[in-house]
């Protein structure tokens, strides 16, 4: 039994401590928004936030997570798709097949929490998720839309 804090709520999961967070989310907790792509932290489809840091959950064993660590998944980003990143994604119709987009969105949320106005170089360095449909340019435009909106609101 392990206690986790997921999307602000305590959750107990009955799994072997070697089980990656990804599979505990998908199979024990029924939260299938986080996707399996490669299993070796290469593609980023499984990205969630752990204490605000974008983390590839397919290689993070449950046993390595402290109960007080805050895990946020795509399901916990907003109750209704109203997070600024989700709104920008909708405005630009970013997804194609959409399979990588949960991870892509979580990686971007992680980036913007650290750096509210990333340069192209920052984006290139931090957003290394794989999208086989090829949404990269729309992802970049959506990131900038969020950053610009933030600036407008701040200014």
């Amino acid at each position, binding site marked *: 039994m392990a206690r986790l804090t997921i999307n602000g709520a305590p959750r107990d999961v009955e799994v072997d401590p070697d089980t990656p967070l990804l599979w505990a989310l998908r199979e024990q907790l029924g939260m299938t*928004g986080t996707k399996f792509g490669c299993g070796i932290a290469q593609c980023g489809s499984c990205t969630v936030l752990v204490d605000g840091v974008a983390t590839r959950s397919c290689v993070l064993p449950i046993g390595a997570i402290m109960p007080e660590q805050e895990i946020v998944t795509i399901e916990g980003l907003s109750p209704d798709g109203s997070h600024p990143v989700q709104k920008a994604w909708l405005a630009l119709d970013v997804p194609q097949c959409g399979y990588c987009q949960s991870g892509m969105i979580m990686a971007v949320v992680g980036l913007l929490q650290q750096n509210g106005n990333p340069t192209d170089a920052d984006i290139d360095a931090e957003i290394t998720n794989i999208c086989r449909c090829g949404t990269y340019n729309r992802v970049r435009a959506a990131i900038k839309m969020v950053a610009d909106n933030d600036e407008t609101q701040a200014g």
Partner: protein
Amino acid sequence: MLSAPTVTRRNFIVGSAAAVGGLSLGFSVPFPGGAQADAIAPEINAWVVVRPDDTVVIRIARSEMGQGTLTGLAQLVAEELECDWSKVTTEYPTPGENIARNRVWGSFSTGGSRGIRESHDYVRRGGATAREMLIAAAADEWQVPAAECSVAKGVITHSPSGRSVTYGQVATAAAAMTPPAEVALKDPSEWIIAGKPLPRLDTADKLTGKQIYGVDMVRPNMLNAAIRACPVFGGRVASFDAAAVSGMPGVRQVVQVDDTSVAVVASTWWQAKTALDNLPIEWDDGPNSGVSSDTIAAMLAEGLEADEAFIGNEAGDARGALANAAQTVTAVYAFPFQNHATMEPMNATAVYTDDRCEVWCPTQNGEASLAAVAEASGLPVERCEVYKLHLGGGFGRRGNFQDYVRQVVSIAKQMPGTPIKLIWSREEDMLHGAYHPITQCKLTGGLDADGNLSALHMRISGQSILAAVRPQAMQGGRDPVVFQGLHAGGDEYTLGYSIDNLLIDHAMRNPPIPPGFWRGVNLNQNAIYMECFMDELAHAAGQDPLAFRRKLMANHPKHLAVLEAVAERIGWETAPPEGVHRGLAQIMGFGSYVAAAAEVSVTDGVLRMHRIVAATDPGHVVNPAQVERQVEGSFVYGLSACLYGECTVDGGRIEQENFDTYNVLRMAEMPAVETIVMPSGGFWGGVGEPTIAVAAPAVLNAIFAATGKRIRRLPLMNHDLRST
């Protein structure tokens, strides 16, 4: 004038949004598309259901895998239906329903960029027919001629009397009308829904994690399976020691799936996968353990010089003219195996009982999946059903190839009554693909004294997809698909150059690595071979690559138009910025004319792709915003192959097992893409694939301009671009 439908049943309901009743659909409700409500909502015809609240459900037979066909096909139906687009939703009919209803929805196959170009006519007729039935129902109730009624946004109006009624209010009556025998379709110039850059219908759930893909399927009491097939092609299971893992956590059963594969079934997939990793399996490697990339390369190289070859395009006397040319240029190119590497690994969920087998799966061809279920279950097809789920990418992997469906049915059959979800690991996916075929190509061009191309011999050597997967489509042993983009004529793959003495032929050499249709198919390497060699010829002739091509394209105005469009947009006639170099390419494929112009720089051997301009003429455009997305996306797919894509073979198996050794293009390398959508009308071409083919040769030609290096053997990562 349209013939007025006759009333076969009076059931006219006005002013009651709560009205129910109407038609029973006469077939099982699709699952899980939310169609349960339609048991009480009338189907106007196979394509259109109108609910009492005026919601319109449009049935889509083709599969949505990211390419936007769900939205595009719905736009075409809605255009003719004249409904309110804001009230449109979609659902998939099932393959079993299609068979039960005499294939009323036509083909379910979603590949070859055919989704829209091959069904635009009958889906629009479906919408137009439903509209006429709805109008006729209103006219009948009002006792006025249908011709006096008009419709806009799902509201039918009889102007002379000022009466109006919504589609939802007349739907039940309309469902009982006899469909008109003839309907007229709008000219595309009259379109108000189709042809517009409308947002996709399927975006919202992809932003919240709610979208259910095949891999997300859950059934009550479901167990999960992980599978391993013999990594050597043609090998088999010799033995395995189930007892070694049967006590591991969650493990329920270890099963031999077929001659080549073993699966572990457990409570969760992670448990199944963990046990499978610990399962001792002995393989009989079979006849191919000596096959390697080197032996395959030697096999193909022999084909480049072979006497016998299938002819794909021939004019004049190429060999004779080459012998007499003032100058000849020869080059050998090679294009390797590629894996589709869909982000969602292969998967399917099945439940088998003695008299029924049902499968939920992501598939590009629901009917092919259904056939696979029937075959693997041994049940008559009427007792089988397939429920299509959203695909996390397809790219050709999930159409013709239903191996994952047969496997899950085989497992489920060994555990009757228990739903089984099979998920492949990424490693399984990489080792058991249906790979982009491997080919080499030797090109010999002859230039006359003025530097004009007088002759060309293009010898392709290598794999035939049809020979492996659809031998019945071969033409006397010849595979016409090998020559995509190189045909003498036709409406899909015409070569855009007129060359007096031309020979394009194919020495078929089929190594024992299974080939498949991979987004763009043979257009990919044919464009590289032809368009990079055109650049070589222009260089040898001392001519500008655009000017050199123009001289050969006078008889191919549509090919030339897209090429000129990208050249103009990139500023071909003006000097690029310091350190930036340009390349061009064009081809016709999947019925569309496409071209690209790339700007790259190479600094200390490091390539940077700054910008690619694309142009496409697909005849008609249903959603220009989706076309732009498909062009950008296709470039990522094509450039991933160009830069990194290579599945090598050793010991009869593929060496790359995951994205750490099979890299793909990522954000940092993505060029800016500008898309010129220039439909010239009069034909319907595809969109998802054609532009893939021009990205790589445009970039490779720009790399030559930057470095003087011709990259003829893909992928680029195997080459050093530093100046020597």
